Structure formats: structure tokens, C-alpha cells
């Protein structure tokens, strides 16, 4: 089978994402809009594959293409939605591409190009992927259904373990891209990676000078373990991307109180749960943060506390990710497949004396610079300077999310038997990095540096006629 179908698949996935963005009235610069379209389109299209299987329709290239076409048309059909009453978000003006960005862009292209090649060329490598998502995908493609013989074969009974039941997004993407003719799938990871870099770099440029945005982006990309996951399929890198995007729109909502950003934030958090189910652990605390922030705004606007607004926002924020977890674990695994992971439950034996140790073990991981690079240290230094010396509170909501993640990981290590430092946390930690990079871009410290560079640049512009004279 030829891999010529890959462009067509991507060509259909992008309008699926753009269609939803249009309904939510999210308007960005063209390249960022397309990148975000990919980032929304990939997980939305994965839902189509699952729904085909639930409906009992055979999963083939034709049925998937038809399914994608129908959803793309439906989402782009002219309509009057409730969200249409909200005017589109004002676009933050962005400077055009400057010469000083070229070295960074050359660097991004250099590391992205080889990542794409390796995603295409290399077979699926990681053990958890072979024993889980790609095993399911390979046989789903062969047999035309996700309910393949791996779940029924008597010789595999008792040996399935947890991996085939992990959250389905990467598995469903493997199904689609294997159907498209790629022997090892995986190229969707490149689409995700490049779109994320394009979108996130653009987002950083909105708040800091491109030079600073470039440095932050290099720090984010130079997390060696995370970079390796841009060409080796597993759940963790896509989860980190979706989580990071949820944070971008969370901050946007927190600042501008835009309903569309709020929904997109909850939706990206839902996609993160659709990619790695344990992400749901962080959602209730996030919902509390939403409720607290919503109540503060309601209080300042109406001069009295409005609990109803607070609780509704919190509940909606929790409901969307919960719906994704329920769709997979309760509906698909529980009612359709009628099988589930072998052992992922509570340890049942909670020894609270170990809790301080878990806090230490989680923090200790960041010290492994050969795995995680320097971003965490730069973040820590910037956060201290910002809070202690510059008294900056403008992006505190992101610091609250860092605390939520940290606390959530401690709880996971403490309470779940299937969790381990090596398996769960090592790659789960990826979620911190886009969040840390976003915080750096929003920090007062780097804004001050940016302003200095901009003033200096303006000085250059003013001084030019002097030189001419």
C-alpha cells in the first residue's frame, strides 16, 4: 500500500480542527490557526475511528476517509451557534519575521527534519507501545476492528496486562496512519510536533520579544527525553502537548474571560485525558482553581460573591475531561470490549509515612539534567526572581498549575500500585515543560528584558536617519 494517502488524511484532519475553531470563534494568524487546526483535528478525528468501531462499521481506509469527510463537512457547515454571539477574540499584533529569528528557525527546522525522518523510518520502538497501543493498532488494521483477536486469543489470555487498555488517542492515530499505508504509522507524531512548535512559538512571540521567545523555545525543545518522544510513539509526548495547550487557553480565559478559550482549555485537557488517563487526577484541583478565579471575577463585577458562576465553571471544566475518560473506560472498555487493565488500582495499603519521601522523589527527578535539560532550573530561577524580587502576580495562575501537577504526581506515586518512578513519572513529567515555558514567556522578568530589547530596537529605527545625514 502506498503512503500517498497520508497527505489526504492530514488534509481531512485539518478542516475537522479548523471547523471546531470556527464554531468556537477562535481566530489567529493563518499559520497559527492551521497549526491549532492540526492540534484539534488529530484528537477529534480519533473519536471518529472509535465511533465507527462502536457502530460496528468495519475500519478500513475507505470508512475512515468517509467518516473524516462527513465530520469535516458537518463542522464547517454554515450555522448560527450560541458562541457566534461572542465577538471574535482581538488578535494580538505580532511583529513580522525578523532577521534575528532566523538562527532559531534554522535550529527548529534542523531538529524537526530529522525527527520527521525518524518517525517515518524507524519501527515502533518503545516496549510499552509495542505491547500496547501499536499491538492493538496493528491487529485492528489487519482485522478491520479494534476488537481484534488480541483480546480473544486464548494464547494471550492472562498476558494482556495494562498496556492495550491505555487511553486510546495514540493507538487510534496509529490505526489511521497504518491504514494510510505507513508501515509503522508514527508520522502523525511529526504533524503534532511541528504544529505545536509553530503554534507555541507564535504564542510566545505575542508576549515577549522574538529573541526571548526563541531562547525559551530552544530550552523547551532541548529536553532530550521529550524530544526522543517526537519520533517514538507513546502516550506521554502528545499528553504534554495537549496539556500545554490547555494551559495556553486557560491563561487566555483567566485574563480575558472568554468563553471560547475556556471551552478550548477544557477540551485540550480532555484530549490530554484521551491520551493518558491519569491526567484526570489533576482535573479536580484545576476545577477548584477555575471556581476560585471565577468567583473572584464575579465578586469584583457584581460586588458580591456569586457561587453559582464559580461552581458552574468548575463543573464544566471537570465534565469535559471526565467525559473523555468515561467514553474510553466506562463505555468502550466496560460495555463494548468488556475487558480492562489487569492492575492499575489503589495500593490499598496507604502508608502516610512514605508521603514526604514521594515529594522528595518527584522533585529529585528534575535534577536529572541529562534526561530533562535545563528548562526546570531556568523556570525555578525565573519564578523566584518574579515572585520575590519583582512581586509579579500576573501569571500566578500558571504557578498554581505547576503546584497542582506536582501534588498530583505525588498522589499518583503514593496511591496507585501501577505507578512507578521509572514508568509513570519519568515521562509523565513532560507535562511540566510546556507549562514552564509558557510561564517564562509570561514572567515580568522576561517582559522587562523584552522591553529593553524593543526600546533598543526602536532606538535603532530612530537613529537611522541620523546616520543617513
Amino acid at each position, binding site marked *: 500500500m502506498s503512503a500517498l494517502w497520508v497527505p489526504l488524511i492530514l488534509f481531512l484532519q485539518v478542516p475537522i480542527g479548523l471547523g471546531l475553531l470556527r464554531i468556537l470563534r477562535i481566530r489567529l494568524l493563518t499559520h497559527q490557526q492551521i497549526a491549532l487546526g492540526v492540534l484539534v483535528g488529530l484528537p477529534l478525528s480519533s473519536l471518529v475511528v472509535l465511533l465507527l468501531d462502536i457502530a460496528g462499521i468495519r475500519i478500513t481506509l475507505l470508512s475512515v476517509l468517509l467518516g473524516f469527510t462527513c465530520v469535516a463537512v458537518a463542522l464547517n457547515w454554515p450555522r448560527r451557534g450560541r458562541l457566534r454571539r461572542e465577538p471574535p477574540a482581538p488578535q494580538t499584533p505580532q511583529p513580522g519575521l525578523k532577521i534575528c529569528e532566523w538562527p532559531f528557525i534554522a535550529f527548529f527546522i534542523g531538529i524537526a527534519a*530529522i525527527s520527521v525522518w525518524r518517525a517515518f523510518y524507524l*519501527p515502533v520502538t518503545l516496549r510499552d507501545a509495542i*505491547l500496547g497501543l501499536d499491538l492493538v493498532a496493528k491487529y485492528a488494521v489487519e482485522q478491520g476492528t479494534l476488537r481484534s483477536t488480541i483480546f480473544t486469543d486464548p494464547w*494471550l489470555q492472562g498476558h494482556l496486562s495494562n498496556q492495550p487498555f491505555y487511553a486510546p488517542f495514540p493507538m487510534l492515530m496509529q490505526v489511521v496512519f497504518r491504514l494510510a499505508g505507513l508501515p509503522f504509522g508514527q508520522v502523525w507524531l511529526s504533524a503534532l510536533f511541528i504544529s505545536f512548535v509553530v503554534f507555541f512559538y507564535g504564542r510566545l512571540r505575542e508576549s515577549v520579544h522574538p529573541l526571548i521567545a526563541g531562547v525559551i523555545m530552544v530550552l523547551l525543545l532541548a529536553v532530550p527525553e521529550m524530544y526522543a518522544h517526537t519520533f517514538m510513539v507513546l502516550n506521554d509526548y502528545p499528553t504534554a502537548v495537549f496539556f500545554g495547550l490547555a494551559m495556553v487557553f486557560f491563561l487566555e480565559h483567566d485574563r480575558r474571560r472568554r468563553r471560547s478559550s475556556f471551552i478550548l482549555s477544557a477540551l485540550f485537557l480532555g484530549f490530554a485525558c484521551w491520551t493518558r488517563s491519569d491526567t484526570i487526577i489533576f482535573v479536580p484541583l484545576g476545577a477548584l482553581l477555575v471556581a476560585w478565579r471565577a468567583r473572584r471575577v464575579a465578586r469584583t463585577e457584581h460586588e458580591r460573591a456569586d457561587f453559582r458562576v464559580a461552581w458552574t465553571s468548575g463543573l464544566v471544566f471537570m465534565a469535559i475531561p471526565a467525559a473523555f475518560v468515561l467514553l474510553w473506560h466506562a463505555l468502550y472498555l466496560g460495555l463494548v470490549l468488556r475487558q480492562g487493565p489487569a492492575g492499575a488500582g489503589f495500593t490499598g495499603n496507604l502508608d502516610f509515612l512514605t508521603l514526604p519521601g514521594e515529594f522528595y522523589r518527584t522533585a529529585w527527578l528534575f535534577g536529572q539534567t*541529562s534526561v530533562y535539560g535545563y528548562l526546570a532550573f531556568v523556570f525555578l530561577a525565573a519564578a523566584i526572581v518574579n515572585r520575590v524580587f519583582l512581586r509579579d502576580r500576573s501569571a500566578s495562575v500558571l504557578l498554581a498549575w505547576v503546584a497542582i501537577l506536582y501534588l498530583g504526581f505525588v498522589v499518583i506515586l503514593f496511591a496507585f500500585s501501577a505507578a512507578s518512578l521509572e514508568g509513570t513519572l519519568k515521562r509523565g513529567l513532560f507535562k511540566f515543560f510546556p507549562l514552564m515555558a509558557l510561564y517564562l514567556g509570561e514572567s515580568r522578568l522576561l517582559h522587562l528584558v523584552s522591553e529593553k530589547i524593543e526600546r533598543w530596537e526602536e532606538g535603532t529605527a*530612530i537613529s537611522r536617519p541620523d546616520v543617513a545625514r
Partner: protein
Amino acid sequence: MTLKPASHRPLFLPAISLLSVAVLCLLPVNRAWIADIVGYYAQVPRQLRTMGYEDRLRARHYRSYAVIEYIGQSLRPGDIFLLPPPDYVRRHFDPIYWSWSEPKYFYYMLGRRPTVTLDDPQAARATCTVIIDDRGRPSFLRIVGPSDLERLRATFRE
């Protein structure tokens, strides 16, 4: 306007960004990471020469895939393959390339072939297996009767 003459300025910022990329790449951890990436680029010409599906699997999964291929060539229709325990494979074959002894890995690489492990209630139905010799080479064995299986149990405990 008392700004200094700025003829050198347009090139100043690009020079700074070039310098920051260079400095970031030269930090110890990043230097090792960049060296990996340069290594990836160096592999491309060889990879372009080996584009076959099997070649790519062989190059990536190396000894695991070599054993799987060897077993695949030796299996006959109707065979039930006894997977050696992973601990035994790690000790005698390879501490890294041992995943082939897991049922799901075997299923992934070799397709739907009946396999059992020593702990399976159906272990007695096994018709063949591999053992690892002193030099770490696998050799395919036919299991003829219950006494063979008992001897294998002892071997796999070594």
C-alpha cells in the same frame, strides 16, 4: 536626538541570537543531545540504503528481532512455542534485548502463533522452545515428552 551612530546595529540582534543558539547548544547536556542529533543525521545515508520493512525492524530491534526471525523459520504449523522466562533470557542472552520472550511481543512480531509460558496451565502442551548456549546463542529445541519439560524447567532456573 543624541543616539550613537548605529550602522552596526542591524546585525547586532541576529548576532546575539546566533550566539544564544550556540551557547545553548554548547551547555554540557545540550551538547550531548546535539551530538545525538548529529549522529541521527549521519545514519540517514545508511538508512536510505535499507528501506525494506524487515531491514528496518532488524536494524531497530536488533537481537530481539534476530531471535524472532530464527524461531519463525523453525516453527512448523501446529507448533506451540514455549517462551523462555524473561529472567533467563536477560541473564543468558541479552540484558537489553529480552522483550521477545514476552507473549505480546512475540505476537506483535511474528503474528498469531500459539505460545505458552512456564507458568501457564497449558505449558505441558508446548512442542518447542529455544535455549541459550554458553556463548549466548539461541538454539531451537523440540519438546518430546513430560521429562523434556521438566529438564527445561531446571535449565530455565539456571
